[in-house]
């Protein structure tokens, strides 16, 4: 029996029957449509909230030249590009900060995965190394899903005074280093204990740590007396890990330091098998483009299609013989 598709009449008639619980499929379709509707409403609300809500301002630690880090102040962060034949770049940040914050300031940039968000460090790049190319490149790792456990940026840290690395049990956004500690990012893989694998660090924390006792005032003065005295000189000076660590002799701190790092580092890397440690002075952050929220038109079109399909489904159910409903 085909019912006249007059909505008012049909609902008036079907109600008492629905109450009799003989018409379970009516509920069935109601649940279906409610689910579709609820999802649509949810999507709308969330997206509307996004449009209106403003990002909460956050205070991040300031990037500093290496000379500002000492055994007890600041945090040294090092990233090893040895996987790509590059140097170990280190820079300094004032505390408090997070590992994520340090990787995204003073010329450093990271990319997360689409699946895990920016909190999962998938690519790392420094604007003074290879023109800011982030490694691994999209050809090597698409950064859509979580990278495999054999090839990702492993995170190591050593507390103040410690000379052994520990594989971090916390993520980049969850780890807040103590002043005077050292962090290291190495690309590769490791076991859970951090004892074997391609990513186990070959440089010691001591070779990366800033060894001046006080945040180098002398260096600062020296730096102030010769601002940009050697423009052709590589801003990032290299030291070999075996050699005595640089005692705050970095002339870094100038925003002009950029490209030379790669050249000097490459030259050194070819002569020595062990990775070269270079300073990566803070670079003025480029103008960050304001995030655009895109257009809502596609969402509206999709919702219209969904509503049309739902209407078709409701019509199909209403036109079923009553017994069958």
């Amino acid at each position: 029996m085909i019912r006249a598709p007059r909505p008012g009449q049909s609902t008036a008639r079907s109600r008492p029957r629905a109450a009799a619980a003989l018409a379970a499929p009516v509920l069935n379709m109601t649940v279906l449509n409610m689910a579709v509707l609820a999802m649509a409403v949810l999507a709308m609300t969330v997206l509307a909230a996004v449009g209106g809500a403003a990002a909460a301002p956050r205070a991040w630690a300031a990037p500093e030249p290496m000379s500002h880090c000492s055994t007890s102040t600041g945090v040294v962060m090092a990233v090893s590009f040895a996987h790509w034949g590059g140097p170990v770049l280190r820079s300094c940040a004032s505390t408090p900060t997070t590992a994520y914050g340090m990787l995204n300031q003073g010329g450093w940039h990271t990319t997360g995965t689409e699946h895990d968000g920016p909190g999962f460090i998938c690519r790392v790049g420094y604007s003074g190394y290879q023109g800011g190319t982030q490694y691994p490149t999209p050809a090597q790792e698409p950064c859509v899903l979580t990278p495999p456990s054999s090839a990702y940026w492993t995170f190591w840290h050593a507390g103040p005074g410690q000379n052994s690395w520990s594989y971090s049990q916390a993520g980049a956004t969850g780890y807040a280093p103590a002043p005077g500690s050292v962090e290291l990012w190495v690309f590769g893989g490791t076991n859970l204990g951090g004892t074997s694998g391609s990513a186990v660090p070959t440089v010691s924390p001591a070779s990366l740590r800033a060894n001046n006792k006080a945040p180098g005032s002398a260096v600062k003065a020296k730096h102030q007396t010769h601002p940009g005295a050697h423009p052709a000189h590589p801003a990032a000076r290299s030291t070999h890990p075996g050699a005595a660590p640089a005692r705050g002799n970095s002339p870094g701190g100038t925003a002009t330091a950029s490209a030379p790092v790669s050249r000097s580092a490459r030259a050194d890397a070819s002569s020595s098998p062990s990775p070269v440690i270079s300073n990566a002075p803070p670079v003025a952050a480029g103008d960050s483009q304001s995030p655009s929220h895109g257009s809502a038109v596609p969402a509206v079109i999709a919702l219209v299609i969904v509503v049309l399909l739902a209407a078709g489904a409701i019509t199909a159910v209403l036109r079923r013989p009553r017994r069958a409903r």
Partner: protein
Amino acid sequence: MSPPAGRPGPLRALGGRRLPRALHPVAWWLWAIALATAASRTSNPLLLLMIFAVLGFVVAMRRTEAPWARGYRFYLLMALTVIVIRVAFRVVFETGVNPGDHVLFALPRLPTPGWYSGVQIGGPVSLEAVLSAVLDGARLACLLCCIGAANTLANPKRALRVLPGALYELGTAVTVALSVAPQLVESVQRVRRARRLRGGGGRGPRALRAIAVPVLHDALERSLRLAAAMDARGYGRTGPATRASRRLTGLLMLGGLAGLCLGAYGLLGAGVPAGVGLGGFAAGAALCLGALVLGGRRVSRSRYRPDPWRWPEWAVVGSGAVSAIVLSLGAGYDPAALNPSLYPLSWPALPVLPALAILVAALAAVAAPPPPAGPGRPGPEEAPVPAPQAAVAALPGATR
């Protein structure tokens, strides 16, 4: 069942009133699996929403009145549960807040010892994290609903008929298992209706007991009846197979399955040489094939009223395949639109080609013939039979 007399085919069938018949179950399964493939390729909320809508539309248009066809709402509830669980886990186990995130609220943080700091309980919850959990859950929910739609649209008992003969023992077990859930639902409905007619109302544990006992009783009785019916039809007979050949078949099958497992591990896991994965997979497949051929020899089957495979089946499978192919290839549109980034938050784009491909899948509702009428008006083909008999009739080797 043959198409109307005269010119058979799509044009004639679309023009006139089509005879109701059940579509080949394998066609529905292929269609649903193709849509699931498409859903697994994307995390775009608009595309997922459209797949949900297409599934609901086709199910509403083409489901039968059989007991298994009434279960779609359970799959929907299950899908919602998946999303809720994912969001709850993302909220409770903090994943870190990135700069620029929109923090919704903060839960009190439970301190964890240093060696366990990889897992943090409580903490700030950002909108981005919740949305990412919703999208992840929605994708899984979409897969669930695809399988649910296939279960709703296709007759599971008839689908088993296409199993190779060597698997008929497995098929028997699967049939019994598949018929349990719909039979339980049916039993519960019947017992509840009987209770209501007798004026027995009430809720709580007493009502539960009054329903559960007859239902269990009913289920046992039905199982015994089904077992007796199957026994009478010659199930469990080993045929001309010797003990040695049966053992060889079993050994080949087990070895083949182990090879397939090893191969899958080798193909998916990192750090295993690719040769091991491919070799294991090939060896496993070969062993399984050998077991199927060997086992199939000892089972002689007769086919009773085979399901036809005509143009509606091709059209349904094709409409599903279009969406799977378009979303898997990633050509002709921006592949990044399939997985829109949540950082920074923005409206998702609607890639035209995938959206059209998903809409093509909705054509299955038109391509498939109308389902046979329900119990009130028995159709020519799919007249309902009491469950145990229906189960047996649909099995390979059964004769009526």
